[in-house]
């Protein structure tokens, strides 16, 4: 007993000493600039998503390298701009140096996380619908839930890709060298490749991304304005572009962005929250044999999330295909299979292991997160960064993954509201991750994850088993978190795989040769 006390007396001050020396700074992974393994010189011929061709938006020829106007720009860069670069400017150069597509994807994910909160009920017990015309009121617009985020990130990635294909077309058409290649006395702050500098790819991506994001997150215009300005300035501060590279890129990016948003405006999203359709959906479910269709488990009852999102236009397959690949009817109440799935959940509920809780938490991506589509965009962006992809090839990767994720969202939502099945909570099961407010079958996490992992495995075959395991774990996490039956997850994985395969087929035919 005395020894134990002695031990305690000695260890308390030691513990204190150890703790006080601890630094509470949070360290995050640092992303650095690199020279891409390939410049993808032919990317100007790759197939675009929305643009008819890489020439659809004209870009005027730049001044020649011996033109007085250009020489003046070079002189100003060398003797005015670069000598005046501050430490603060250099921080921006390093930040954006990680890659323009990479950073704008990260910014979009952060916005999604910040806006991913369900509206609170008002005093009358009703849930006000977020208003795009008044985005910062309560509730804020948008509610960046998984379908919303999947769509926002898909349009972002498509805009970046189409804009970059177009930019590559003009880059190799005009072949203006980077400032430091035209004038060896300019030392750039970032690694400079042989990629022609006009129009600036960073400005193209910044302007295209900005155009999508101000439409998707209209309350964030001041924030996005500052990011846009910084992204463009950073390239000049780095000595990597002259202002005319930036101006041309900015104009091209904005024009392409506007064309992508014009498509987004008519994709059916404006009718995705049509709550008038749910009565018919419930009726259909009953007709198929669903005895107790889904009902909101919230108090007061919350209208289901985007019941008509399933009607939004898909990217990589058409409507008949969507209906053809819809998962078959799940196990119905009173069947032995249904009972088996419920029993599995009851066992977990009673004795959830810490590892099951960990998996459920890791993949939860619930309120306040950038959602499963954001999670998989992050995985894709990090894989492409690690592989040192060129900007255009990174954009292609994210567009393939992003369109697959949006297609997965649409097809999964269509399935959910087609069958309208009840959550396990309608049978008394509690959850350790929070319950989404929409029908159960199939699991969104499983569908999203399988679609993204399928595409990523095709792009990075050496990592296929890793992505496959991650998708399976994400899928299992919904059983461990007690909000999905096993069949929801298994069928979601199968569905997601098919959806991913359509994106792969598109990628194989886009002329990239990858």
């Amino acid at each position, binding site marked *: 007993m005395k020894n134990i006390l002695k031990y305690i007396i000695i260890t308390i*001050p030691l513990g204190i000493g150890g703790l006080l020396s*601890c630094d*509470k700074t*949070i360290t995050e992974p640092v992303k650095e600039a690199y020279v891409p393994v390939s410049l993808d010189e032919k990317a100007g011929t790759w197939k675009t998503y929305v643009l008819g061709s890489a020439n659809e938006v004209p870009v005027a020829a730049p001044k020649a390298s011996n033109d007085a106007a250009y020489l003046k720009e070079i002189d100003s860069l060398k003797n005015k701009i670069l000598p005046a670069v501050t430490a603060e400017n250099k921080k921006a150069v390093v930040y954006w140096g990680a890659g323009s597509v990479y950073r704008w994807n990260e910014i979009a994910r952060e916005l999604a996380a910040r806006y991913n909160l369900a509206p609170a009920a008002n005093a009358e017990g009703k849930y006000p619908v977020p208003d795009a015309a008044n985005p910062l009121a*309560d509730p804020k617009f948008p509610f960046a839930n998984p379908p919303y985020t999947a769509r926002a990130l898909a349009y972002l990635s498509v805009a970046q890709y189409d804009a970059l294909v177009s930019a590559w077309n003009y880059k190799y058409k005009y072949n203006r060298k980077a400032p430091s290649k035209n004038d060896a006395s300019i030392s750039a702050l970032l690694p400079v490749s042989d990629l022609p500098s006009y129009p600036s790819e960073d400005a193209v991506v910044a302007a295209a991304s900005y155009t999508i994001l101000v439409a998707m997150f209209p309350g964030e215009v001041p924030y996005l304005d500052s990011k846009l300005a910084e992204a463009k300035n950073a390239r000049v501060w780095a000595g990597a572009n002259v202002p005319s590279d930036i101006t041309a890129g900015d104009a091209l990016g904005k024009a392409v962005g506007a064309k992508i948003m014009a498509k987004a405006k008519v994709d059916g999203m404006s009718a995705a929250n049509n709550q008038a359709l749910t009565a018919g959906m419930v009726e259909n479910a009953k007709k198929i044999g669903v005895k107790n269709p889904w009902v909101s488990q919230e108090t007061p009852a919350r209208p289901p999330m985007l019941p008509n999102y399933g009607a939004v236009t898909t990217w990589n397959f058409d409507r008949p295909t969507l209906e053809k690949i819809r998962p078959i009817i799940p196990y119905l109440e009173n069947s032995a299979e249904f009972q088996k799935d419920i029993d599995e959940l009851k066992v977990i*509920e009673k004795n959830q292991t810490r590892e099951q809780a960990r998996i459920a*938490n890791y993949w939860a991506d619930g*309120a306040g997160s950038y959602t499963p589509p954001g999670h998989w965009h992050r995985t894709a962006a990090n894989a492409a960064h690690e592989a040192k992809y060129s900007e255009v090839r990174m954009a292609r990767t994210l567009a393939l993954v992003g369109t697959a994720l949006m297609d997965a969202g649409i097809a999964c939502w269509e399935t959910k509201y087609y069958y309208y099945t009840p959550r396990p909570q309608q049978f008394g099961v509690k*959850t350790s991750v929070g319950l989404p407010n929409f029908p159960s079958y199939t699991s969104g996490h499983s569908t999203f994850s399988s679609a993204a992992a399928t595409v990523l495995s095709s792009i990075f075959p050496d990592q296929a088993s890793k992505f496959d395991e991650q998708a399976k774990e994400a899928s299992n996490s919904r059983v461990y978190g007690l909000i999905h039956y096993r069949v929801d997850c298994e069928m979601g994985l199968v569905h997601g795989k098919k959806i991913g395969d359509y994106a792969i087929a598109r990628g194989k035919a886009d002329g990239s040769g990858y």
Partner: protein
Amino acid sequence: MLRYALLGLVCVTSSVYAQMPHDVIYMPKKTACLAVSYNNSSWKEYWENTLKRENLNIGTLSTESVMPMLAVGLTDKLNVIVGLPYVQTKASAGNLMGQKGIQDLSGWLKYELVKNDKGLSLHGVLGASTPVGNYVPDFLPMSIGLQAKTVTGRLIGNYTHKSGLYITAHASYMYRSNIKVDRDAYQADNRVYNTNEVRIPNATDVALRLGYIKDGSRIQAEAFVDKFSCVGGDNIRRNDMPFPTNNMTATSVGFYGKYQPKNVGLNVRIAKVIDGLNVGQSFSYSVGLLYQINYFKKSEKK
């Protein structure tokens, strides 16, 4: 330590001691007191940032804990106190799963720095705690604790009149370590952190107690007011759940009483949060069974 670790939306629970890390009672040399306390804390309303609200999908959140703790008189002026609670949470409505498990081991050293013959005294307390159970810290408000390691420094001043009336004041600063969560990205401070490391704000605690004590603390009764505040931290966002980074503040008032005529005794404590930020407005009560051991004395006599 329990009461602070749980301050989240969980509750403001109390530890119950025959003597506590915030009073000026000492176990005499070579005596020890074992206390086992039951604590029950619940709230229906909470402060979402500054907005006082209820949540129909939580109903009433209740936290129950049982804590054995031991106070030992190393000398008449130096005591050590250790405790380890078992905690469980439950929501009366909605579908969030209750959590349960062993929480954090805490230890305190309390030392009488100065005491004069006019009834004035000053005491220094050094405390530390470390999580024992591998519970989930960021499933608030259901989580049973925050997983932070803590170190607390505290000064206690006391004046006791001959009649037994006393006034006690204390001020503490608590260092709380960063924690690791299961996810590798989370939002705090209105941004996304791409890591599993979460910063827990440090905290302060001040309290004032007015009471009566008799027969060498065999009988004690006091009223108190206590304010716990985080040093920094962010606020719960509109209609979001709380998160370990939140700036949690709570002012509570309460009563504490003890009756220990012989070796065996009883204490009770009730407290209510009257104002707060990012915490539940909890009402809590606890009952403790006390048993004084003269183990060391006896063993020495042999």
